[in-house]
């Protein structure tokens, strides 16, 4: 029978064009939402369309979004890191210690990054090496990392960072473009390429969909997981540098509740919390959507908690509505 192996049928590469897929994608939906909110804001407040104000508004999300890019990869791989807020706090504390010993800005930056990497490596070892579930590991390290910050600092604060250190969180590159915004954009590009254009990104998707089968396909699953935790730690370190610089001081309580906001950005960005799917452009859009919502409501002096209701509704609504529609259709 099928002796000649070349008799197989020709299978087309694709049935739908990438363009038509993109139109129906989550990112398209988010883009529509973002534009709508932008227009609503412009209509509701006379102060909205001011470049300086828009520039200030980016501070509402840039630091969290930096972490969200790494978290997007991590969640796509089927893991999660709830300790990011605590890593930021610990990295900030470490920088404070270095600063109080008289370290100059480059050393402070190195200390911040290194602390992030060490924390990420700690999570990564526990998850990738010892096979513990990441959600509970990072609930534990969340207390541990921040707890170390409290042990070091107690009720004190570190202040008096060198003047040039303020550049990261308070500086402008040109006109209204802040340093943080540039770091945000650069990390979006780097992580976008990493996730969508490299074989590393491909293995992340494979692991998220079926880690066992990925391992049976020669993928170094544990190494990829470890690297992802490392990256998340690193980005938390970068966020810590920005936030510390922006606040000009360190308390162990900084970045409280960051983890849930970061996860919210990622999930709103269309990354499946169960792993296996999601995109970086989606996360970028989600960051803008959330930034626009909170800034727009802030201009109307709506209390933060009411904003969080809106964010909660947005989170559930954006996921629920398409499902509801497809359910009603059938």
């Amino acid at each position, binding site marked *: 029978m099928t002796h000649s192996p070349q008799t197989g049928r020709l299978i087309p590469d694709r049935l739908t064009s990438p363009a038509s897929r993109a139109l129906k994608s989550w990112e398209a939906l988010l883009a529509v939402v973002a534009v709508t909110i932008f227009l609503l804001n412009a209509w509701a407040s006379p102060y909205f369309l001011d470049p300086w104000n828009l520039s200030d508004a980016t501070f509402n999300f840039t630091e969290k979004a930096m972490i969200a890019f790494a978290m997007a990869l991590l969640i796509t791989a089927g893991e999660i890191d709830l300790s990011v807020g605590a890593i930021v706090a610990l990295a900030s504390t470490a920088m404070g210690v270095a600063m109080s010993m008289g370290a100059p800005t480059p050393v402070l930056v190195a200390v911040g990054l290194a602390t992030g990497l060490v924390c990420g490596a700690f999570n990564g070892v526990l998850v990738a090496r010892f096979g513990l579930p990441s959600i509970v590991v990072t609930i534990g390290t969340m207390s541990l990392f921040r707890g170390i910050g409290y042990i070091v600092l107690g*009720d004190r604060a570190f202040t008096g960072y060198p003047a040039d250190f303020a550049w990261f969180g308070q500086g402008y590159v040109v006109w209204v473009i802040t340093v943080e915004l540039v770091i945000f954009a650069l990390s979006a590009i780097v992580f976008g390429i990493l996730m969508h254009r490299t074989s590393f990104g491909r293995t992340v998707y494979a692991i998220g969909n079926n880690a066992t089968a990925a391992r049976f396909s020669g993928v170094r699953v544990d190494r990829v997981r470890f690297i992802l935790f490392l990256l998340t730690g690193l980005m938390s370190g970068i966020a810590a540098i920005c936030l510390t610089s922006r*606040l*000009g001081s360190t*308390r162990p*309580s900084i970045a409280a509740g960051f983890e849930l906001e970061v996860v919210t950005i990622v999930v709103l960005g269309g990354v499946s919390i169960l792993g296996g799917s999601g995109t970086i452009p989606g996360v970028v859009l989600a960051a803008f959507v959330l930034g626009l919502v909170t800034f727009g409501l802030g201009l109307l002096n709506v209390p*933060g908690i009411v904003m969080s209701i809106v964010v909660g509704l947005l989170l559930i609504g954006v996921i629920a509505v398409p499902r509801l529609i497809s359910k009603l259709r059938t």
Partner: protein
Amino acid sequence: AGSAQAETVRIALVAKALGIGFFEAANKGAQEAAAELGDVEIIYTGPTDTTAEGQIEVINSLIAQRVDAIAVSANDTDALVPTLKRAMDRGITVISWDSGVAPEGRQVQLNPSSAPLIGNTIIKLAADHLPDGGQVAVLSATTTSTNQNIWIEEMTKVMGDYPGIEVVGTVYGDDLADKSYREAQGLMQTYPDLKAIIAPTSVGIVAAAQAVTDAGKVGEVNVTGLGLPSEMAGHVKSGASQSFAIWNPIDLGYSAAMIAYQLATEGAVAEPGSTIPIGRMGEVTLDENGEAAMADPFTYDASNIDEFSSVF
């Protein structure tokens, strides 16, 4: 700066967090000042929980709205500085009140009273009821609360004036009712001979009084510190608290609004030694740090509590 064109002066009164009775009362005072001045709009706002990050987001949106003045009770002395500096760069008048901001982040700090006076008052309230001396403990707010930390520091300085009184420990209730309650319980547990709990925070003092009542130690442990008459009335009557002190938060809010208005419009300058009129409260004089004290704390006990519990 931009106030010239605007017909009303917009003053933002930023609380540590929304919903706390003390700040709601301050808002009342600010509104009173606005009514008196006529062309003033008060924007009362604040984060939902007592974090510096939350306050920064709020302040950012106030800067964007180009309010004329921001009067803030800070959750963190230092963390607000860069943001408030930016506000000043954009021509906005910035003062802090109640809980202060480091000098470079504001033009004026309005202290409810002078810190040494408060520090002395809280320990005196405890000592007055302990003629034979004894152990007392402090239940503070968060570890980062500026004013509590300063008061406790001032209190420690004058401890020598109260021989026989021993401060055995300081715990933090984070201005959360349940945590303060548990910390108060822990204090009574750890120090069976404890005679008084000093809580210089309106959340902590209520929780501590409740904990003392629940532990059946009314009469043994006296809860004192700083609180609101409306919230403490029941505990004063039950005897859990012999007395406590507070300045009038309505006056504080009134004064803060007045100072902000003066600085933003009337050309009052924030320099050491300058005096700023504050309406019915008279005037304040700035010290070398740009700080001013409003009034002395007032002590409440069973004799006068009913009179004030309906006011604030």
